[in-house]
């Protein structure tokens, strides 16, 4: 079994076939040894919960895909599987290329450290050698507009400044695929514009972007395709405009809890594989 065939079109940056993630929700989950020992006396109740189920999609190289859906619909779970931090329960996932993820700076690193030190550390975290990062450092700081603050501890940064630096780092590592989960909103209007412009530039340079967002406007303007997740299932997929329209219509039309259970596991066209078996 030297060469197992990878599913999907090799020109796609991301191929996902019937991907599923199950969490075993333990209602009284023992988080300490003491509880575990006590728990041995009682039968353990676990309830399987599918946060993502039977998701099939692909993103062409140089494409931008938006992932939308209500809270808890599995968007972040899907992104974490793409990032390689969560192991899928079922299905296949192929990511062709190097990855960059938006990191929340400040959360990860020592607040006493300067912006500069945090840039090295986050780059290292993304697997980028410091030497390679140094070359583009001035550009990075210029992009984040933090020249004046780069050598002060990040505990003195505002939330938006941290977000800027984080975004600047994640685009500066120049990976082939950029994964973004709901963080663009923190920057001010001017910076958001700048980010959008930069992402367009990256896409035309062949980079692939996946964005999880509740910002319908951003998804419409940045993404060419979108996937609407509903309770872990793909409810709709296709051109970003259409999917966002459908999602908005449904969100406005329906009260909470009445979301219909209809879902489309396979959606035609737009580079999305119809059949999981056509590997």
């Amino acid at each position, binding site marked *: 079994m030297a060469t*197992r065939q*990878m599913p999907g079109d090799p020109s796609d940056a991301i191929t996902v*076939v*019937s991907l599923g993630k199950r*969490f075993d929700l333990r209602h009284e989950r*023992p*988080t*300490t*040894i*003491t509880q*575990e020992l006590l728990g041995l006396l009682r039968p353990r109740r676990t309830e399987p919960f599918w946060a993502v189920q039977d998701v099939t999609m692909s993103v062409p190289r140089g494409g931008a895909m938006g992932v939308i859906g209500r809270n808890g619909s599995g968007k972040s779970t899907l992104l*974490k*599987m*793409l*990032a*390689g*931090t*969560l*192991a*899928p*329960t*079922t*299905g*296949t*996932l*192929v*990511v*062709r*290329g*190097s*990855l960059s*993820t938006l*990191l*929340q700076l400040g*959360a*990860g*690193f*020592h607040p*006493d*450290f300067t912006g500069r*030190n945090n840039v*090295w*550390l986050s*780059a*290292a*975290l*993304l*697997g*980028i*050698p*410091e030497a*390679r990062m140094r070359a583009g450092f001035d550009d990075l700081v210029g992009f984040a507009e933090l020249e004046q603050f780069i050598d002060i501890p990040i505990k003195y940064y505002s939330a938006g400044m941290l977000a800027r630096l984080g975004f600047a780092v994640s685009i500066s*590592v*120049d*990976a*082939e695929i950029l994964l973004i989960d709901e963080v663009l909103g923190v920057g001010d209007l001017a910076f958001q514009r700048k980010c959008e412009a930069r992402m367009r530039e990256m896409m035309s*340079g*062949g*980079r692939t972007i996946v964005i999880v967002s509740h910002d319908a406007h951003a998804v419409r303007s940045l993404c060419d395709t979108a996937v609407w997740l509903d309770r872990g299932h793909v409810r709709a997929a296709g051109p970003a405009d259409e999917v966002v329209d459908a999602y908005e219509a449904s969100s406005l039309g329906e009260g909470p809890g009445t979301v219909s259970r209809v879902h489309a596991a396979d959606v035609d066209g737009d580079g999305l594989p119809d059949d999981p078996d056509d590997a």
Partner: protein
Amino acid sequence: MPADPMAGDTPSNQGRWGGPSEPSSNQGRLGGAVSVFRELWHYRDLLRSLVSRDLAVRYRRSALGFVWSLLNPLLMMLVFTIVFQVVKPQSVRNYPLFVLAGLLPWNFLAGAISGATRSVTGNAHLIDKVYFPREILPLSVVIANLVNFLLSLAVFLPLALLLGARWNGWIFALPLVILIEVMIVTGISMMLAALNVFYRDTEQVLEVALTAWFFLTPVFYELELLPNQFLGIDVWRLVYTLNPMATLITDYRYVMLYETPIIRHTLIPFVIGIALLGAGWWAFRRVAPAFAEEV
């Protein structure tokens, strides 16, 4: 095109996970020790950054910096010297040196293990956002503590010579003794770092266990002081065989203070060290894919 010629150098998770219905076969990517070390090598900058962050935090926080990390064992030495020379005199020659030679390696072990135990849970927000070899977290704590230990030895050894320690060729065995301790410390650290993700009271249990272990280790007393007969048990032999730190700390003293050859029983901690390192690393790798769900 992906213009960057270095792009191939960055990690991709292509094929990271197994095929359909092989949920937990992602360990397939361990593929033996070679790939583990190749992956660690790729992330060496991260390891280095984390180690220097750890040391910088430790030394930078106070004006005295590194001096503080020396002061702690010195003060403890003072306490033990006062207690055990005044309250219960011991026949040990040069007791302060004797205590220090045991305290420094012990502090390395205790500091590394308790820091490493918290290393994965303390970085939860990184674990679920970006993939990197998780062992880097406990390893960086162990390495930072090792660096601190070596620095303190660099101060201790000349001081010991000055105060009457005598060396011969056996001083060159010191790196071997340190290596064995590093294996033991790393193995336990990896095991507990993983365990603490699933059971958060590992930290508390560890605290008690370390205290007990400290008293069962001849840090402030001589190993020979342990009774051969206590309720019918040969306590000396028991501690000697089961507690690798008992042998190691005795070795440290022989090598650094008394020009006595290493005792032959050092083979036992060596074997225990290899076993702990292997078991700890294996256990850590086995459960690491589930970290992102649990933290």
